[in-house]
């Protein structure tokens, strides 16, 4: 819980900065975790285009991983990954955590 009182915050739900979704970690909402197989990946970036949470991490135009702090586990990346490639697999979060 944040501690500022109703007298100290801007009215109307305004947040006095932009782009603050980055500081709101939605990864804890996840039921299924996307697991990326770097060996299979052909870096077509279909997952990067479709990800609604900008959670596909790129470096120099190539996929390097997944931002689990923000990924909500919607599974769109795994759906969009070409069937012949299947570099992304959705795994139950509890199973993924147990496997660690």
């Amino acid at each position, binding site marked *: *819980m*944040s501690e*500022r*009182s*109703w007298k100290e*915050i*801007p*009215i*109307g*739900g*305004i*947040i*006095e*900065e*932009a*782009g*603050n979704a980055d500081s*709101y970690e939605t990864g804890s909402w996840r039921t299924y975790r996307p697991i990326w197989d770097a060996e299979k990946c052909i870096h077509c970036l279909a997952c990067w285009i479709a990800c609604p949470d900008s959670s596909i991490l790129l470096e120099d135009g190539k996929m390097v991983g997944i931002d689990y702090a923000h990924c909500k586990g919607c599974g769109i990346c795994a759906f969009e990954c070409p069937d012949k490639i299947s570099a992304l697999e959705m795994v139950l979060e509890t199973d993924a955590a147990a496997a660690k």
Partner: protein
Amino acid sequence: MARRLTLTGNDAAAEAMRQIDPDVVTCFPITPQTELMHKFADFVADGEVKAEMVLVESEHSAMSAAVGAASAGARVMTATSANGLALMWEIVYIAASNRLPIVMPVVNRALSGPINIHCDHSDTMGCRDTGWIQLYSENAQEVYDNVLQAIRIAENPDVLLPVMVTFDGFIISHTVEVLDALEDKEASDWVGEYKAMYTLLDTEKPATFGPLDLQDYYFEHKRQQIEGMSNATEVIKSVGKAYEKLSGRAYGMTERYMTDDADYVVVALGSTCGTAKVVVDEMRAEGKRVGLLKIRSFRPFPHAEIVAGLASAKAIGVLDRSVSFGAPGGPVHKEILAALSGTGHQTSIVNYLYGLGGRDISLDHIRSVFEELETVAGKTIAPNEVRFIGLRG
């Protein structure tokens, strides 16, 4: 210099809007509001205003577009009635919660069903808890004056809440009356320029609008809304005083018509107050101590003024033009009971339900209310003993 005009209530609202010339007006037609926006569309087509008029495909979109434009920092108006207001409902709350000072004339009409296009207050009474300020108008003059004052009230930095200016469908909206209007320059100086605290288009000071607001801050934001609504009482009064200086016409939270020494007081809002004043005049001429307490601002509710206005009353008749199904009485009645509760004021309060779906209320009806009040003074009336005016038995 006042301009004397003969206008319908709808045209009086449109005339005020022409002089305000909001940045954005969103609209969708619905009887009996339609002619209001017809008239305003004429002003747009004739180049008399610079307002951006957005014609949308539903009232839900009319209010959504209003919220968007107001978030961008524009002064925004729209208007509706009954089922149109009902379709807006979701966004009506958002406009208030996001603290957007949108001003919306609402032409009171019975909510369906069965379908009906005539006046009652079920539409605006239904959204009395949306966080909008509600000003009820007695006639076309008050429609005009309330719309102009609503801009100043809504945009006051201590308030920043949207305002509904309500007036009775057909009875006011379609009846031609004589009224006095301000000169254009007086009106534009009165409303002045609106400068929003935050705008979507300010790249120097970017902000986030309408974010997710969960257990940690939602409650605090509601508390702020309560404060804004509470501040509105003083702002409505001070704007009313300033407007009196400009126009010569006085406005407060309530109007006390011969209540100071009255034994029997009728409480009402809207056009019925005009009818009641005639009855009060007639009965005063007969030596009866009767009065009318007119509620202008239903939200915020004028508790202090109500208590003062009813101080001498031995019996009070509260007129409700909408039903609160399952509750002991109508919405106005409950507020009056709450206002007097704990004040030690001993009086008999009778609730009258009238005028649903446009059912006429006559001088004789109101006279019979006063006559009944004379017989109940001193008696305890249960809150659920509701009387019906003009209903076939």
